[in-house]
């Protein structure tokens, strides 16, 4: 465990929840869910068997998704995780929502999937999975990418909701 991921309290800290008060009390009532959320983050971002998506690339995709959601604080958290994992050229491209793959077929497929599924999942069609396959991304890595993208959609919304709870507490 380490400073970046060793945070049982990540979503609460990201949302700026007061140490004492009604929102904190509600969170303490769901401490089991916060702990399971932390484990899911670990499994999505730093799995023991990362397959074809390195830890640095996973952190980079998390930076990208946090930015697509307008959450700069969460993006900074994952940028630190990306640094810690050792930034590669591919990670730097994946982290920047302004870049779509820089001419590389695999990165283009990855960013295409992440952007579409993060922002307008209703518009996904079978061809979006075929595009990943055509870029040489295997079935298991497609599922890994889908889980990472989907987990971040969850985490970013838990944080967004908690911020609103705190603001109106």
């Amino acid at each position, binding site marked *: 465990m380490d400073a970046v991921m060793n945070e049982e309290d990540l979503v609460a800290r990201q949302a700026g929840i007061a140490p004492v008060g009604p929102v904190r009390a509600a969170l303490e009532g769901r401490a089991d869910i916060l702990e399971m959320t932390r*484990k899911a983050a670990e499994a999505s971002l730093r799995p023991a068997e990362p397959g074809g998506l390195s830890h640095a690339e996973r952190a980079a995709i998390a930076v990208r998704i946090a930015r697509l959601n307008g959450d700069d604080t969460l993006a900074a958290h994952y940028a630190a995780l990306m640094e810690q994992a050792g930034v590669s050229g591919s990670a730097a491209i994946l982290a920047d929502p302004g870049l779509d793959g820089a001419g590389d077929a695999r990165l283009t497929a990855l960013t295409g999937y992440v952007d579409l599924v993060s922002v307008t*999942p209703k518009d996904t069609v079978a061809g979006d999975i075929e595009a990943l396959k055509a870029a040489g991304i295997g079935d298991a890595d497609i599922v890994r990418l889908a889980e990472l993208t989907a987990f971040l959609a969850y985490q970013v919304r838990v944080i967004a909701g908690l911020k609103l*709870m705190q603001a109106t507490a």
Partner: protein
Amino acid sequence: MSDTLHEFTTTIPEWRPRVKPIDLATASQAQLDALKVTPSNTKVSDYVLVLANDVETLAARTPLFNAIMYNRGGMGRAERELGAIGASVINRCVYCAAVHASRFNQLTKSEDVTQRVFDDGEAAQLEPRQAAIFRFAARLSKTPSEADEKDMLALREAGLKDDEILDLILSAALFGWANRLMHTLGDPVAKEPGA
């Protein structure tokens, strides 16, 4: 082969994967553990067999899903389902919407609310408490989230306590996750007659 369904329904469809489900015959022990496969329980859905391609995340996700939707206390089960439906409508996950609308209907013994939501989406006219819940879940599901303090105050004015609001955030956010798996990794298709 059946055609992909695009319209909301409360009849639970089949789910046809776009990527290969794992083969139970060659599954690792970690995969069998995550799937909870035992000699007396060998029936596993294609959806879960697809997710078993990423066994570490599947093992973490299953207990989290169950805790958010079914743990005691806080928000009632039907209202958590309404949070799930709000997300599923925005993300247009026809399969998720069918499963959770059908559960909501069973729990409330009424089909009126889900029918309105399927017909009118975000414009659906619901009684005030349900309207506040559905609106918050739907707006939290946009990217970036469009839920604002007014939506949160509407929940409080409708009588929701902090523990219930937290459960709503969790259930709506959880379906931001579930919808993105179900709706991208496979297609909802009508059940074959006699299947």
